[in-house]
């Protein structure tokens, strides 16, 4: 078990830059999720750590070993692939045993380890089958078993749940989290699913176009996004972002005036803030034409069972409001929306967050 460090790692495929100077440190025992849309370079970063790709520049280390030019087999890592990458010609038992056999472990020791791992993952009854006889979820477990059967310095997981159906994905999410927690092995987990990243990881690294945007614990990613991209990429539905103007008192958003504390206002003006961001759950619906609210029109109402999402069009964009279950409103009816600007964050023209959401007030 060891920390993993990328220092100035770059990778280009021909003229396409997949990674631009990635600096990322994963502490020992940590579970880090690399999160980003497809093509953002997260899988490339993982494959460079695995040794399946060589970086164009930079250095990769595991613990205090520089592994940048090492063969995958000399890096002491285990990897779970998106397609599971099981060995089709081997039984489940032989698949799981393979990493041990390659290390010349004795047959009795192999048998013991494989049986133990199979028991942990509840796949003991599948050991004599071939991969093609198994369901996606079962194959997924075999791939996990093959990774954890030995004790590697780090686990690498490349979207391991993306080929499973939604229900199974949620179950496996919890299981992998528990498993990694109990093993305590440093884990890099690539995903485009923010729910996986937020629920499973100790640290989330958000990437976009080969550039690392922010590394932070999940709550911080959600509450204190470093920039507009992180703010709108993380969260379902995403954060609402609207242009903002600073009037004599408070701020003007889409024709409405909202109050803003003096210190936050000063900070905003100093930083040249141009947009305000607010999470759907921090917005409330009010009657139209109220003071300290914006006026808009109900575009669509989406009942989700446990809550209702209301999409409100205002003059400069749209706002999604998360409200109570059972809420109804006619499409096209007038609506007012209001929010406490303490819960908002403010972006400058480059999209950087200049004023963060205020720490939640006591008693709220």
């Amino acid at each position, binding site marked *: 078990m060891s920390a993993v460090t990328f220092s100035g790692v770059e990778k280009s495929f021909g003229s396409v830059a997949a990674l631009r100077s990635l600096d990322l440190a994963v502490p020992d025992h940590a579970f880090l999720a690399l999160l980003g849309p497809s093509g953002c370079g997260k899988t490339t970063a993982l494959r460079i750590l695995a*040794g399946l790709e060589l970086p164009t520049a930079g250095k990769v280390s595991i613990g205090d070993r520089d592994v940048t030019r090492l063969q995958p087999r000399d890096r002491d890592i285990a990897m779970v692939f998106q397609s599971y990458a099981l*060995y089709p010609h081997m039984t489940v038992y032989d698949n799981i045993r393979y990493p041990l056999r390659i*290390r010349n472990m004795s047959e009795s020791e192999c048998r013991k380890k494989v049986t133990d791992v199979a028991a942990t993952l509840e796949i003991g009854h599948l050991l004599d089958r071939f991969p093609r006889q198994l369901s996606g979820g079962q194959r997924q477990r075999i791939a996990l078993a093959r990774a954890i059967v030995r004790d590697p310095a780090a686990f690498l997981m490349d979207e391991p749940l993306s080929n499973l159906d939604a229900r199974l994905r949620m179950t496996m999410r919890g299981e992998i989290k528990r498993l990694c927690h109990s093993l305590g092995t440093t884990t890099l987990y690539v995903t485009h699913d923010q729910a996986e990243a937020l629920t499973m990881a100790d640290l989330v690294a958000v990437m976009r176009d080969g550039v690392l945007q922010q590394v932070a614990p999940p709550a911080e990613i959600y509450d204190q996004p470093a920039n507009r991209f992180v703010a709108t990429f993380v969260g379902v539905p995403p954060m609402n972002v609207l242009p903002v103007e600073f009037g004599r008192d408070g701020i003007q958003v889409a024709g409405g005036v909202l109050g803003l504390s003096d210190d936050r206002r000063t900070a905003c003006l100093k930083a040249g803030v141009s947009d305000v961001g607010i999470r759907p759950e921090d917005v409330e619906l009010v009657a139209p034409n109220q003071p300290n609210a914006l006026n808009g029109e109900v575009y669509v109402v989406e009942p989700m069972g446990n809550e209702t999402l209301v999409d409100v069009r205002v003059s400069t964009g749209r706002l999604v409001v998360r409200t109570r279950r059972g809420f109804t409103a006619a499409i096209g009816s007038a609506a007012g929306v209001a929010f406490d600007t303490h819960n908002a964050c403010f972006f400058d023209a480059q999209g950087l967050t200049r004023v963060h959401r205020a720490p939640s007030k006591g008693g709220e």
Partner: protein
Amino acid sequence: MSVVARLSANVRRQGEGLDLALPYLLLAPAVLFAFAVLVYPIWDGIRASTMSYRYGKAVGWVGFDNYTRLWSDPQFLNALWVTVSFVALAVAFETVLGLALALFCANEFRGVRLLRGILIIPMVITPVVVAIVFRLIYASDAGMLTVVSQSLGGGPVEILGHPARAFLGLVALDVWEWTPLEFLILLAGIQSLPVEPFEAARVDGASPWRVLLDHTLPMLKPVLAIAIVLRTIDAFGTFDQVFVLTRGGPGEATKLLSIYGYDTAFKFQDTGYAAALFVTMGLLILAAALAAVRIMKGMTPP
């Protein structure tokens, strides 16, 4: 008339009239052709193998006499032995060489496309032309081998006049000409393998050698079996190269079943006996192919 009724008046129902006969009508030409060029000749060959011939004319029915005669004919047994050893040796070399070349050419590197193209060439040259070229190489008086040997201060090289060397010379020719076929089939097989298990094996700790033994070969088994069966069937029937190079000589060192059967039929005009020989040869190939398919099925995991 309602719209529905008007529509249904024009609708033809399935399985009536021409619908039933059409498939058979369309198949008929192909079936007739197959009968004319495949089924009838095979039947006629089997019939001939049960007849006794004199001066090329059938003179009487002899039942299975021609077949029983084969197994006490030392020339036939020799030809069978020569053929089996020729096939085994040639196919073994071709498979190993083809596999090595395919593994090498499955990598992407500069010029690999050109190399793949060049490696195919021997296969597409007319077999008789290949045989003539090899005769020019092997000729003991002014052949290429002799010329090279003499320029190095050696004597003339005798290939086709020496039993063992003539046999190996033929094997070499076959390997040169047909390794490309194995190469082509195996290359296609290697390129169709999934990529991820190989990456997984590298991460799991396997060296390139172990990847080859533990993954490439096992996953390639079905393709390997097809390549071997195809070449075996084809090599059994080798005729033209031997006919051009040695005609079965010296002595009977290169007398394959095909050559012996040809001699029997056309030199000695013993048509019935030759027919029995070729029918037997066909059955042997069929048995070998069926056995190979069996083995193939057993090797593929369920």
